[in-house]
């Protein structure tokens, strides 16, 4: 009884990410005191690591974006010159557009296919096995997958042989004329397993009787998805969408290894922002070592994606549904 009264007086609030420790006060419990004591000792090492490894370099990149610097000599401050260069650089425009295409088109495709698979797998026997198969590319190095992708799509490759097998003699020149499309499809394939796993975990939490009621009411598959699955997994979907957005910004290896060779960057029409940054620093036969310009490209891309993530979170905000 005493415990219940205490709990009612001091309801335990869910810990918010980054929330400060409870202030010392008259009614502070021994547990809260202990939490307060260990808060900073636990937080500081992680924040130090975060500061040194992430925040520091990020801030340095921001400062370097206002410089002309080859990484060796003394840097020169050039104000907004790097940014104005970016405005007029068609290679960057293409790379930035490709980043957005991967983010939006790739993202929509990943979620559409992941939901489709989730719905099919939900009622399927051997679902765990299939899920593992779909998840498999996630644990393989993108470089290895890019080699397999090359075998499939290259001239006289597996796909062309399959086409010939069914009487289609002349298929498209996939690598020559549709390289970026194949890259986007490859990225969807690689990432699908992760999102299928996340969404399946969410869908598995939905009580089966809701679907049984749908069946009794004669709901179609789309209606089941629209009125049961999507609303009840919404929180997970929005978190996964942010995960994809941030992940898509960092995509590099697959495009580099699939579109390029060991010495050469891929053709510029398939570069995304990450490839552009690499191409302007260490990439290619004769590296450019333009750290200022590359940093400016990184800053622009990160800012654009931050705006996107913010808008995405606003647009997808819903009251959580309890069930």
């Amino acid at each position, binding site marked *: 009884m005493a415990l219940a009264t205490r709990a009612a007086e001091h309801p335990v609030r869910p810990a918010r990410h980054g929330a400060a420790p409870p202030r010392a006060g008259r009614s502070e419990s021994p547990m809260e005191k202990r939490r307060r004591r260990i808060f900073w000792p636990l937080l500081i090492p992680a924040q130090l690591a975060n500061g040194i490894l992430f925040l520091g370099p990020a801030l340095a990149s921001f400062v370097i974006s206002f410089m*002309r610097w*080859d*990484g*060796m*000599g003394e840097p020169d401050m050039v104000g907004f010159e790097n940014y104005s*260069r970016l405005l*007029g*650089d*068609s*290679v960057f425009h293409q790379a930035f557009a490709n980043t957005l295409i991967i983010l939006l088109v790739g993202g929509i495709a990943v979620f559409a296919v992941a939901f489709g698979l989730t719905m099919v797998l939900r009622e399927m026997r051997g679902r765990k096995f299939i899920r593992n198969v779909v998840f498999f590319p996630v644990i393989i190095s993108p*470089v290895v997958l*890019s*080699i397999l992708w*090359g*075998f499939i799509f*290259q*001239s*006289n490759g597996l796909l062309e042989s399959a086409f010939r097998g069914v009487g289609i003699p002349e298929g498209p*020149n*996939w*690598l*020559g*004329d549709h390289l970026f499309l194949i890259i986007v499809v490859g990225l969807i394939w690689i990432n699908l397993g992760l999102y299928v796993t996340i969404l399946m975990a969410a869908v598995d939490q939905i009580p089966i009787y809701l679907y049984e009621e749908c069946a009794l009411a004669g709901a179609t598959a789309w209606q089941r998805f629209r009125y049961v699955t999507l609303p009840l997994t919404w929180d997970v979907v929005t978190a996964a969408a942010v995960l994809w957005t941030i992940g898509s910004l960092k995509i590099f*290896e697959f495009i*580099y*290894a699939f*579109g*390029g*060779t*060991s*010495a*050469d*960057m891929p*053709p*510029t*029409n398939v570069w995304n922002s990450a490839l552009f940054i*690499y*191409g*302007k620093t*260490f990439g*290619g*036969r*004769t*590296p*450019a*070592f333009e750290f200022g*310009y590359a940093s400016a490209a990184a800053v622009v891309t990160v800012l654009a994606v931050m705006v996107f993530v913010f808008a995405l979170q606003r647009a997808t905000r819903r009251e959580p549904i309890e069930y």
Partner: protein
Amino acid sequence: MRSMHTSRAGALTAIAVTGALALTGCGGDAESSGAANAADGDFSGKTMTYWSYWQEKEPQAKAISAAIEDFEEETGATVEVEWQGRQVTQKLAPAMRSNAPDVVESALDNLAPLVGDGQGEDLSSVMTEKSINEDSSLADAGVDRFEDLVTNDDGEVWMIPYSVLGIGIWYDAKEHSELEGNAPKTLDDLGALITKEGKGSVALDSDVPYYTTLWASSILMRELGPEKFRATVEDKSGEAWMDDDVMAAVEKIRDVVPPESFADGSFGSKFPAIQERWATGKATFLLNGSWIPQETAKSAGKDFDFASLEIPAGTSGEANAQIGLTGYSVPGRAKHKELAKAFIRFVLEKQYQEDYVTSSSAMSVRDDVEVPEDLKNIGDSIAAEDPVLALDGVNVDYAGIVPEVFAAPVRDYLSGGTDAKGFAQKISKAQANYWKGQN
């Protein structure tokens, strides 16, 4: 031209080592200036660091290791080698400010942006000095032929080359014995030969922009001469591609290698698929570098008799061999510069160069080291006239110009996706964009 070599290493290597820096500091104190002459060999107790372009298991590394052992024995110095592999210059960039090695080895196009513009030690003395086991200088051995190509605007020699890489149109001399001593004399002759060989006779891995560009740049350089080719590329507006002479040279590319002359899959495969098809006799010609006999040896088999044709003279009349160089540099912040120079001079001694050539089927810069049999044609062509850098070195002077300017328009043009005018418009636009972004 490191990258030419680099194509051999798998994509895995390229990705895996990026950014992985494991640099060890060199031991010992900085040497006093003017410490010792290379030939004196008095460096006992000193330790220098050497970052190699090769990986430890490669045959080239074994040859160099033997030279290092002898050097240590002769001088009493210690050489700490790091077999960095093809990514050596990517690791060098961040080390240049603080922890630079004493000697770094790589291809010219890799080293140029790092040490080619005053950031490296002037190595001109290495050309003229004797070595521990040699009374003659490198200049006496003909190495100074390449000196202009590794000298910057301030007259400093920033790299001592040891290996020369040539470019040729490779074929199997066993299958085409008629070409022996009967090489095409002009670009028109070459075009006629390719046409005679029929459709699909030219192999090209067009996903390697450098290889694709080579066809265009080689013919343009023969037609226009290296200087006008360079001037065209350096034109900030890109309008120079519309010049009548340049357009005629562009048309010549199509006359020599029309789209149908390229082997099936040349524009839709992953390197080295088409090169391998060439090695197995599915195509007659392959424009590529002097590493091809070694790189395709397994697929080609013992019966394949490697031979090559030089890209013949065009309107300009010039037919100088196009080359790349691999060599040694000493970063400006190296702590043991004199020791480094002595080491470089030592490794370039005739006996060690012979070991290197034997182990790797490569060509030495020394004219007293025999050229391997497979590379005879290229060797002759390099010996005949002073060579020029492939692409006249515009790819070395202007980072990113091949992927950003040449790659897509040339690929479209060679594959028949556009005509000469369309090519000129495309490359002109890409070039204007490129120059707009240069500092």
